[in-house]
């Protein structure tokens, strides 16, 4: 009597335990996939970068929160200049600000006279110097 009841309880115990674990996995999975979608809906002030290379004016607008600057063709902003490193710097949006950080480039990045060692906050109309190249930042504030 004890044995059979005990066995039934054991089985139910595992069912209940794994129902708990299964629910946990399922809900976690949902929350991960859900938060990705939500992450895309966070409003970001539109970033526009302007540069002149070989006399050509180039203006690009970005909607992502992460913009890579460099000479490599896969960069978001390609600066075709020998003094620019492959991956020269990066603009990211967090804590309600656009930030620029230098990615240990050979010739460094400068905000006017200031050499950029640490990530710094950039604002509308700032100019960033990457080696001999330069680009200008326009930020359209949120509505």
């Amino acid at each position, binding site marked *: 009597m004890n044995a059979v009841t*005990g066995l039934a309880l054991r089985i139910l115990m595992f069912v209940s335990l794994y129902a708990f*674990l299964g629910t946990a996995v399922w809900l976690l999975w949902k929350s991960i996939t859900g938060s990705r979608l939500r992450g895309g809906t966070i409003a970001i002030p539109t970033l526009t970068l302007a540069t002149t290379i070989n006399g050509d004016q180039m203006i690009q607008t970005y909607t992502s929160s992460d913009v890579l600057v460099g000479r490599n063709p896969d960069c978001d902003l390609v600066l075709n200049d020998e003094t620019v490193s492959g991956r020269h710097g990066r603009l*990211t949006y967090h804590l309600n600000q656009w930030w620029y950080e230098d990615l240990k480039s050979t010739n460094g990045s400068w905000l006017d006279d200031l050499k950029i060692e640490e990530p710094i906050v950039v604002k509308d109309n700032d100019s960033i110097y990457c080696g001999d190249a330069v680009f200008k930042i326009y930020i359209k504030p949120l509505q």
Partner: protein
Amino acid sequence: MLLLVCITLFLYAAALSLATGTRLHSEKLIISAEYYIPFLVWLAGTLGVQRNIRRRLPNRDPWIFPATSGLTGLGMLTIWRLSPDLGLKQSVWFLVGCGLFLIALNTTDLIKILKTYKYVWLFLGIILIGLTFVVGVNPTGTGQRLWLKVFEVYIQPSEPLKLLLIIYLAGFFADQIRPNVSWLGSIFPTLVVVGSAGLLLVAQRDLGTASLFISLYILMLTVTTQRRRLLWVIPALALVAGAVGYFAFDVVRTRVDIWVNPWLNTSGNAWQLAQAQIAIASGGLTGTGPGLGSPQFVPIAVSDFIFTAIGEELGLLGTSAVLFLLLLLVVRGIKIALSSKTTFGRYLAFGISAYFALQSTFIIGGNLGLLPLTGVTLPFLSYGGSSLVTNIIAVLLLLRISTETSPQDLPEKARSPYQWVTGIFVVIFLLISAWNGYLAYPNQQKLIAKAENPRWAVYDRYSPRGEIYALSGEKLVEVQGEPGSYALWVNEPQLSNTLGYAQPLYGQSGLQSSQYELLRGYVGVPFEERWQHELLYNQPPAGLDIKLNINLALQNKADELLGDHKGAVILVNAQTGEIYAIASHPSFDANTIAENWDSLMQRTDAPLLNRATQGSYPLGSLASTLAYGSLVESNHAFDLGPTQDSFRLDPFCYRAMQVAGSSINAFQYGCESVAEETLNSTDPAILKADLEAFGLFSAPDLAIETADPSPALSVEQLDQNPLSVMEVQVSPVQMVMVAATITNNGMRPAPALVNSYYSREGTWQAFGPSQAAQVVLSENLSEEIQDNLRSDTQTIWYQIGHALINQEEPLTWYIGGTTPEWSAAPLAIAIAIEEEAPELALQIGNTLLNLSVSN
């Protein structure tokens, strides 16, 4: 979510409450209601806390509380199952923890207070540790003195110190605006603090906690300075510290040694590790069932080894759930850190999560033999009030931090160390789980079969072993008592050497060991029955009875005749090899083996040795008979007639001949000169083949343990020194097969001790001979040998021999058998007496052979 946790734990408590009745195979429902106490305490505390956090922290992380309360409840019930006393204490501690939780929950500025007074908390912790040096105690009375005793309550200050240190580090690093600006400015103060706390612990020999601190510190440094490569420091430091510690501390050396090979020395500390692995294996995939296993065989199962206790009774399913819940806690904790609004909250949440992760890794890895054992607790599960209360408070902190989230994500560079740490712990937990699975399933049978596994002794108490009968149905060993207290009783203690003992502390021997599978019901029982018992009771089914070939009348006579003399007698059916009597003196009483163990072990006359099967005696002058066949086959002429010289030179031979009072026969009375002459005149190649055919160099195929056979002599050795045959070590059971061969027309049967087993169909199933009789001598030759050794007055043949054990102690041999005129089944006998006693040998041999007619 919490509802499922409550249901699971209720079912666990309910299953535990039925375990006693299950083990006893009770027909009626027996319920041990005490297991509901920890469940109800847990339920009250959990629901009380849940009500409050629902009101005060509506935006909390939804996983932390169900996961940790589930682990705590599982721990409380498991501790109660292992020790109700400690279970009660743990329940009280749990309520204390819940009380503190509610107080902390209602302290509005808790996080701020923690941060502001971080140095106060830190020094409080360090002072407590310092106090253990002055007034430290150990609740068990011996060992490391890591506890403080406050009004009969033991507190282990290193537990809260862990949390206090995390608070301090989080506060300190949060104050640094740019933690990676200056190494000296930001790292040095913390290094001093952590270093001194670590040193205090090292001085206390609490090396587990010390290494935990250091690992934790490095993990926090990694995320605060955003330098991922710092993670390499942990394995590097572990190697260096391990190497230094190995030579500096005995504790470290033994821990590492037994970690490397726990099976090498399973008596001391390694016992624990070996038992831990056996416990995991005993649990297998689904566990023995709550309350049905024997997890208490692992020392300190309630605290350090609670993981293995869960592994035994809930199996891999249970331990995987524990690992999953711990990992869930860690992953969610780091998630809370990443989305925390304040830097202090982020570092604090990360520190707490890393602490849970590291401590779980340390102790579970240690339990399973993946890491050297460090005596830290398994968070939420292990017995220990200081640890439980600290963990409960840590959970509160996590929950509070989880309610204050930042809407923005951290920059990529700052996120990455957190993600790396999470990834590393996910991998570590998966590895632990995989190894746990390996121990529990592919390696299961190997571990369960280890000699160190004492679970059979528990099975014997609840499920009767098979009994052992003599051939005519007399019970030699019977099972007494009732379920829960079954015990073996040996009715014929003089046979203890052969029947053996099964004693929890000293293991099993003789037939109890060799026929274990049958007696214990592992073989010969239908698979369904075994499976059903395993599943329902975690016990093997009732064992099968076995019947020996022993003839109790002959056995008793042999024992009586051998008396107090050291030696062995073994009587067999010469045709079938069935052993009718097997005596070995001095013997012991298997019924009192536990009481007399020490004195039995101290005795120099080896009473536990079965001389008939395990005795190793030089062949001596019996070599003449063994060599006779090859002598004839080599076509050497040799006069076996009486030579006065043989007798003059050999006083034993002379004495034997006088005792027998028969005609002079130098061959029959084992004159050494005859043996030497026989050996010297024989062709070595033929001799070697004959000795091998007689089975002198091979272990007899017997149901109980036998002596290792002597290495075979090569033809060259025999050629150079034929007399080396007389030094060959043989056991009486080997010699009785020689006697059987001579009696049975030159055919050597295999010895047979066990006759049959009582099958579940209700019939005695005979064991056939283990192998067919082998031709050793031609019929003519065996007759010729018999003629040489024939008794003048009886229908028997015999030869007396002698030898020196270790070249000093005298030994008397007797082998004999019946002649073809004998009317009943042919018999053979071998006797070895460890003294010069031809009279006794003759008396025993002739009496037993003649007595057999009437039986």
